[in-house]
């Protein structure tokens, strides 16, 4: 946009219009601008932009420029000139500034040794009255502290103008939170650093020194990872007892509202070890979750105090963001949430108790719980929770325990635990302490149980157990019965589990149960949850089920509702919504519209998880599938060629998507006529599917069909027939004899029989069933239905049922003509069949000519198609009879 000031003409014109419009209302403004800037779109755009900017501006004293000036002049204050001397030290440059004064980097300049120090100056005029004794005390305190994680005091004194100074060990580092974020340190490493800080504070407490201002800016971490606690500037001796009035007032000036404990805001309350425990809780919260537990940004002292005293702290797991997860090496916000729920939340909550005596009694106790958590041992404050120890045990032995009978016992036990504990807590409702604990832990426990159960269910889903454990179904059935019958008091938990179970039953291909569970979850969410994301997730599951049940129109409505509920879904939710909608569109024969959705899906998951992540590889497989369906076989092949090596590297050898890619490759080879390559790929895929999903599964059925077409192309009619029949049997078992999937399988078997020319009646029966089912299940203009009709028409023709054949073929032709394909194979085939059909009774020269035309065209397009060969025969017969 041309808006540079040096374009004087434009400037003057814009200025004139701006002045004319600035006081008008929106409507008048628009009218005026339209009239005045005809033929000057550039000017209009500029003026509109300026008016919009003008309307959005903050008051002059508070806009961005004013803030910038404030910051600049603020920073100019108390700039100690470089080179100024304090004692043996010469100022080099400023490091930091704060309520106590300014900290400079300084160098020893007395000709003895080279030494860099952090020189802390406190301006005399402002703080003169109480700073001198304070500084003297700080000197005594600090000089007594010698610890690897505490910055040492080197010297203290007064400069030439009376300014008091401290020379402290210069720590070349960054605040601990920044250090962790810049290095994207994992939780474990962050907790390790936090333990170092605890050790320093614990040591100081043992010397009867409390810090009173622990916060991330006061904990610097060097490049080599060594954490140093700075600035015992407001520390006081525990031994001194309650401070006198003047001191607390001074302390009030210096406290940091983000990390100060409630009692630090109260002038007459003693401030001791508990305040440091509180501040450590704030620091822990920031380190692990990335957020402060209580936000006092922009509040004045009184409002900040009010909030710190009364607002419940935000526990670290509550405010997890994708960004925070990413900075901790985790794939998404829920992974971080799961890691923090339970122990860490409980530890932070304990530190942040409003009453000092309810916090950890010592930093040692806090550190001990962190260490226990890291060692996966039960933490002290949660030991009273029944079942808690058992869960710790499972975590600790997660690898060894596996997914067998032990898991089954725990699973059932955990459902029972959730109910029992709830009842027990209800009984103790009058006990205030208990109620408070319940509030703190309720959320954490419910979600922990959900996660635990969902984890187990996922582990019992065939994709995960990969066919090792046949008894999984029994296990899940048992759990389902428990969940459906119970958990009335915990609707949230129940809804999550019903949804998760629905997914599991989909994997079992038990559609009735999956649907019942998904609906139950959705209605439970609707009636009990105000969280739109949760309601959307439950609704999405019903859409997934609707797709599988062959009700894409219903699914589409549900998906629209999902989109209305959630505007900024996390990548997982977004991906699942996109994939489900793509499936829906495929089922509605809107293949082309599905392509961009899956392209976006690949984009979403690759951005969120990286291109080597199984989720990205799986999304790519799906995209390849829909590209193929949209006729873009070369694009699909290119995608798969790219991702297959990655899949071999990053997926387990029996990952379902590996099977999926193998079958896609097999199909591609088959479609290029390379049956030698296609056959082993398809056989490998079939074996994998059988192993992963069992015989009666959609996957096994589809792969059997693909292999059947390959065998058929190799001329192995019996093998092919057996495979087609097997596929049909599976589909009928799973989806029912009247499903769209059954129609497709009937068609495949029927057209195979038709092509092999043997069981003509059987072929006709299968094709009739295919068309009958598809007429019920598919939209009337669905391309599959039309294709089924070609084969049915052909069979009817061969059986001499010319009138029926004509009707069926004309229905197909109408669909093909409405959606012409590039090659025109189906149109040519249908016209050929129609012509051939007319030859039956009439044998007109016109029909023969039409048939000849169609056959010539078909030989160019698809010379090897069995249906083309049938037309060849028809033409040959017709011409011979003519002769």
């Amino acid at each position, binding site marked *: 946009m041309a808006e540079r000031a040096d374009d004087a003409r434009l400037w003057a014109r814009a200025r004139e219009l701006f002045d004319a419009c600035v006081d008008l209302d929106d409507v008048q403004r628009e009218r005026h601008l339209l009239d005045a800037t005809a033929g000057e779109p550039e000017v209009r755009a500029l003026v509109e932009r300026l008016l919009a900017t003008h309307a959005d*501006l903050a008051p002059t004293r508070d806009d*961005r*420029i004013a803030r910038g*000036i404030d910051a600049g002049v603020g920073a100019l204050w108390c700039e100690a000139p470089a080179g100024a001397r304090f004692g043996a030290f010469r100022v080099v440059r400023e490091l930091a500034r704060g309520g106590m004064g300014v900290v400079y980097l300084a160098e020893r300049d007395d000709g003895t040794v080279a030494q860099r120090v952090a020189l802390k100056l406190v301006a005399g005029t402002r703080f003169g009255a109480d700073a001198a004794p304070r500084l003297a005390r700080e000197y005594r305190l600090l000089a007594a502290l010698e610890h690897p994680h505490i910055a040492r005091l080197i010297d203290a004194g007064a400069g030439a103008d009376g300014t008091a100074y401290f020379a402290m060990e210069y720590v070349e580092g960054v605040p601990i939170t920044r250090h962790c974020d810049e290095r994207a340190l994992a939780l474990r490493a962050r907790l390790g650093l936090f333990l170092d800080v605890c050790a320093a504070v614990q040591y100081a407490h043992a010397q009867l020194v409390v810090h009173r201002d622990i916060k991330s800016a006061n904990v610097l971490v060097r490049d080599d990872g060594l954490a140093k606690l700075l600035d015992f500037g407001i520390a006081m001796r525990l031994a001194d007892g309650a401070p006198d009035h003047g001191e607390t007032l001074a302390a009030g000036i210096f406290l940091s509202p983000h990390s100060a404990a409630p009692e630090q805001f109260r002038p007459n309350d003693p401030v001791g070890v508990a305040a440091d425990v509180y501040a450590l809780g704030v620091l822990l919260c920031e380190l692990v979750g990335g957020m402060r537990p209580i936000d006092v940004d922009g509040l004045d002292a009184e409002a900040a105090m009010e909030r710190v005293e009364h607002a419940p702290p935000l526990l670290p797991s509550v405010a997890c963001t994708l960004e925070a997860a990413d900075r901790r090496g985790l794939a998404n916000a829920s992974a971080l949430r799961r890691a923090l729920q339970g122990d860490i939340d409980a530890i932070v909550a304990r530190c942040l108790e409003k009453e000092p005596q309810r916090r950890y009694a010592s930093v040692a106790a806090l550190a001990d719980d962190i260490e226990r958590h890291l060692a996966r041992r039960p933490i002290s404050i949660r030991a009273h929770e029944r079942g808690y120890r058992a869960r710790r045990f499972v975590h600790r032995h997660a690898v060894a325990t596996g997914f067998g009978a032990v898991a089954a016992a725990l699973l059932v036990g955990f459902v029972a635990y959730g109910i029992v504990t709830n009842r027990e807590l209800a009984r103790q409702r009058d006990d205030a302490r208990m109620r408070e604990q319940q509030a703190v832990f309720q959320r954490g426990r419910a979600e922990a149980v959900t996660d635990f159960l969902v984890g187990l269910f996922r582990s019992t889903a065939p994709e995960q157990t990969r066919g090792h454990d046949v008894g999984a179904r029994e296990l899940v059935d048992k759990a389902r019965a428990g969940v459906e019958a119970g958990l009335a008091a915990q609707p949230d938990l129940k809804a999550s589990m019903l949804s998760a179970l629905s997914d599991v039953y989909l994997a079992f291909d038990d559609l009735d149960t999956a649907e019942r569970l998904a609906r139950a979850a959705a209605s439970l969410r609707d009636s009990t949850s105000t969280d739109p994301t949760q309601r959307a997730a439950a609704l999405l599951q019903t859409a997934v089920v609707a797709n599988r049940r062959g009700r894409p129109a219903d699914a589409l409505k549900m998906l629209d509702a999902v989109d209305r509920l959630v505007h900024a879904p996390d990548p997982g939710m977004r991906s699942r919504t996109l994939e489900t909608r793509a499936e829906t569109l495929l089922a509605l024969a809107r293949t082309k519209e599905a392509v961009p959705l899956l392209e976006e899906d690949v984009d979403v998951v690759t951005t969120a998880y990286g291109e080597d992540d199984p989720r990205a590889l799986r999304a790519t497989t799906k995209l390849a599938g829909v590209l193929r369906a949209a006729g873009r076989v070369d694009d699909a092949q290119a995608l798969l060629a790219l991702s297959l090596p990655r899949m071999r590297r990053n997926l387990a050898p029996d990952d379902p998507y590996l099977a999926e890619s193998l079958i896609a490759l097999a199909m591609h080879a088959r479609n290029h006529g390379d049956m030698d390559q296609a056959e082993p790929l398809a056989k490998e895929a079939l074996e994998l599917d059988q192993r992963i999903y069992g015989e009666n599964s959609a996957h096994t059925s589809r792969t059997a069909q693909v292999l059947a077409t390959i065998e058929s192309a190799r001329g192995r009619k019996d093998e092919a027939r057996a495979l087609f029949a097997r596929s049909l049997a599976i589909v009928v078992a799973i989806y029912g004899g009247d499903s769209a999937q059954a129609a497709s399988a009937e068609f495949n078997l029927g057209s195979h029989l038709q092509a092999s020319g043997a069981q003509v009646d059987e072929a006709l029966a299968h094709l009739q069933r295919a068309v009958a089912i598809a007429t019920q299940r598919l939209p009337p203009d669905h391309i599959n239905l039309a294709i089924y009709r070609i084969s049915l028409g052909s069979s009817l023709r061969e059986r001499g049922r010319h009138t029926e054949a004509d009707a069926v073929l004309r229905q197909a032709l109408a669909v093909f003509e409405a959606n012409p394909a590039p090659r025109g194979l189906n149109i040519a085939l249908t016209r050929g069949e129609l012509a051939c059909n007319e030859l039956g009774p009439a044998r007109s020269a016109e029909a023969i000519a039409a048939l000849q035309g169609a056959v010539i065209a078909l030989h160019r397009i698809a010379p090897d198609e069995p249906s083309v060969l049938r037309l060849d025969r028809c033409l040959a017969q017709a011409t011979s009879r003519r002769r």
Partner: protein
Amino acid sequence: MPTSDSDEITALLQRWRSGGSKDEELALFTRLYPLLRQLAAHRLRRSAPMTWQPTDLIGEAYARLFPGQRADFRNRQHFLAIAARVMRRVVADHFRERGADKRGGAQAPLSLDQLGAEADIADVERVADLVEVDRLLDELSTVDPRAAEIVELRYFAGLTVPEVGDVLELSERTVKRSWQFARAWLHARLEPGAPAT
């Protein structure tokens, strides 16, 4: 009683204000720049951090330079006009040096104790780049020098619209119009494509 310093500066101001040359402006700059910078640097000793107003600083500079001429209204107006421009340079130079500091690998200063410790990172989005503002004001003064002057007086001398009118001998309405437009233009330029807040 005026010092010889103040006489000289008064003369410079008068010449500069009555359409004087770049030389006078440069001479005034040379006199005022170190003074304003030094005053800013020493303010910690006298007031709490959050109460700074540009007017205070410039007022203080004026008091230092013209101890006996507070009543000379015209002189003071001239002084404000140049002092606002000097302040703009002081602030912009400060940020330029900071920028150079960072490039040299030095540690960026932290705000330790104020509400929102470490707010310096978050604040970046709410705070304009003053080096860029300085550059834009140069651009502005080539096409509309009066508007640039108004902006300087409003932002860097902290004057109100009527006060700016007094200094520049313009009607309040004229100042307001010019100011509105120039301010919108600056903010729009500072944040291309997004609303300036």
